[in-house]
């Protein structure tokens, strides 16, 4: 009997590609023979748009990259401009950045954990994660007035001080968080079928992870404790005591578990940041018009998906000459085509979900 492979076009409209991502799968029955990923359906030309905006006006565009962790996107950009201008950010602002940044990371990881549960087929975990993410969004709304696209960071500091009513619910949330994480572990991580579906699936070896310059939980799942907050601390991260959770096998399960563990660690960081929150200004002394000297700067931060790099070139005018973002989701996708070969359709979803991409960031 003669059999032949067939091509299945998965996406851009597909419930589990996390947005408008497209993979052209060549399948032999249910097994992937060849995969070609086609990003770009959400490309808005943010980098080009930035060239026609002033430095401050670029900040809202960064919100729209990884819209699940907007605070961290803001951070990457302002860090680069601050580096270019040589601005010393006040200590209080740095602490506030850590607090909102880690909250944003928690929100982003909660989405990752929840949607991964849906990808594997269990819808209930999704709603538990989103229930708790709601609390984070409420907190961030108190700070910035917005729930998704915060634009809270400013070049030289943050837009506003933390309101006093922000702290009691935050404390309560941090107190609840470990038990909430236990709940996810009980509902999703501990499930026999979930483990059968994710363990030893989509293994990324440490060597391949490094070769493809993967970062974030995707790399740490392979056992490499590479976290910028630890290995090259920026801001005030060197003052906090926290661990970098790593996986062992580099499979989908490890990447997933890493995220839940990181949520716990983020809670620890926030707790320490609240305790050590100094008094003082929240903005550095800034000129009226932000006009960095001609030159270039590259700054990196650890976003929830990996290392977010921002490269800014200035020609001395009030508008950036060129802005480029190193988007972790995009870079992490580079290995996907190779990773998918040999796995089944269901695994394609499991592997893609474990990379935790956000299309706004991939396509920028």
């Amino acid at each position, binding site marked *: 009997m003669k059999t032949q492979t*067939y091509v*299945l076009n998965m996406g851009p409209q*597909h*419930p*589990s590609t996390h947005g408008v991502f497209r993979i052209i799968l060549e399948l032999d*029955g*249910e097994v992937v023979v060849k995969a070609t990923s086609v990003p770009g359906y959400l490309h808005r030309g943010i980098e080009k748009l930035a060239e026609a905006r002033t430095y401050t006006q670029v900040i809202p565009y960064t919100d729209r990259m990884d819209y699940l962790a907007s605070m961290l996107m803001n951070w990457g950009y302002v860090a680069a401009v601050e580096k270019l201008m040589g601005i010393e950010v006040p200590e209080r602002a740095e602490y506030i950045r850590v607090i909102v940044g880690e909250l944003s990371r928690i929100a982003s990881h909660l989405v990752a954990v929840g949607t991964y*549960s*849906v*990808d*594997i*087929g*269990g*819808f*209930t975990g999704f*709603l*538990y994660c989103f*229930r708790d993410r709601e609390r984070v969004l409420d907190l961030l709304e108190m700070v910035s007035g917005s729930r998704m696209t915060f634009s809270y960071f400013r070049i030289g500091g943050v837009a506003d001080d933390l309101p006093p009513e922000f702290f009691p619910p935050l404390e309560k949330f941090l107190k609840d968080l470990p038990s909430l994480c236990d709940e996810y572990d009980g*509902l*999703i991580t501990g*499930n026999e*079928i*979930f483990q*059968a*579906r994710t363990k030893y699936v989509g293994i990324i070896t440490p060597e391949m992870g490094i070769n493809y310059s993967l970062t974030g939980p995707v790399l740490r799942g392979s056992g490499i404790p590479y976290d910028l907050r630890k290995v090259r601390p920026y801001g005030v991260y060197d003052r906090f005591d926290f661990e970098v959770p790593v996986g062992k096998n580099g499979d989908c399960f490890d990447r997933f578990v890493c995220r839940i563990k990181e949520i716990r660690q983020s809670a620890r960081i926030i707790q320490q940041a609240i305790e050590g929150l100094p008094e003082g200004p929240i903005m550095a002394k800034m000129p009226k018009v932000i006009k960095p000297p001609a030159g270039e700067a590259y700054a990196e931060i650890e976003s929830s998906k990996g290392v977010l790099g921002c490269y800014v070139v200035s020609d001395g005018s009030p508008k950036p000459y060129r802005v480029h973002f190193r988007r972790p989701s995009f870079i992490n996708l580079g290995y996907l085509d190779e990773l998918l070969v040999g796995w*089944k*359709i*269901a*695994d*394609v*979803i499991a592997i893609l979900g474990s990379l935790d991409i956000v299309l706004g960031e991939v396509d920028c």
Partner: protein
Amino acid sequence: MGENIFTGIAAGLRTILAGAGVPPLASEFIVMLVKLVAVIVFVSLNVIWLVYMERKVCAYIQCRIGPNRVGPKGLLQTVADVVKLLAKEIIIPRRVDKVVYLAAPILVFVPPMMAFAVIPWGEGMAPIDLNIGVFYVLAVASLSTIIFWMGGWSSNNKYSLVGGMRVVAQMVSYELPLVLSLLGVIMLTGTLSITEIVNAQRGTWFIFAQPLAFLIYFIAGVSEVNRTPFDLVEGESEIIAGPYTEYSGMGYAMYMLAEYGSMMVISCMCTIMFLGGWLAPFGWTFLPSWFWFFIKVYAMIFIFMWIRWTYPRIRVDQLMAFGWKVLVPLSLANIFVTGVGMYIYRAIGW
């Protein structure tokens, strides 16, 4: 209390017909017709209630409230949904096999409906008391494989095709443990008649005599009705909706409603074979037999829903491995143990 409502109605109808001078054969035919219509109407309406129940159960499992706007406590939500689906356009994609494509969602209701013909809803309340009732249900229920495959094949969509392939593979493999697990009960009772099997459970329910068989039957049953963790056929996050992908409006709704119909059949069979059918537990006969039957059936359905909203989905190769390497050997072992047990029992002379 209310024990004889339904049998009373049937008897009353017969008396009236006899009084009106209708020949016995014709009167029997009319009574049968009434029974048939009653069962079909009940099953269809019950499906609407089951959808509501599913949504409420899943809502409470997921820390939500669920439908609560249409009607009291949202009871009319499903009715509103069905009306909406009825009003929707039925889209026929280009280059589908029209006849098969349109026939499949209508035919999909047939196997569960046919199975209900022998289900006894209470004492003496089986529409037809067939002496090979169990065999009939199993035979009819396995027909649905073909219908899902029709939908998957005719849609001219690769997702549908993959879904259709999975249906055939899954249902054929899980049919086997499903049947084999029931063999234990049949060996104990020595009959294929549903009524006699229920009556044989007056002492102990077969869930206690055949716990392993019950478990196997339940797992295989979940698989037969394509529900999580065995909902690979639909596999929402992988293959959109499997064979249903191209269907819109009522065509899609028919598949969904049929799924609930099949779930009802499996739950009824579970109740009959293992949970004592209409028999009241602990001699609590203050509730009518049909009421007990429904309590047990809905308890089973609740467990179905509970599992669906807690577990993730298994992968296709794991499904096959589980079916062939775990369930089939276990059910064969169960038959063996039952046989040996029966032999020893007889040898002791109990």
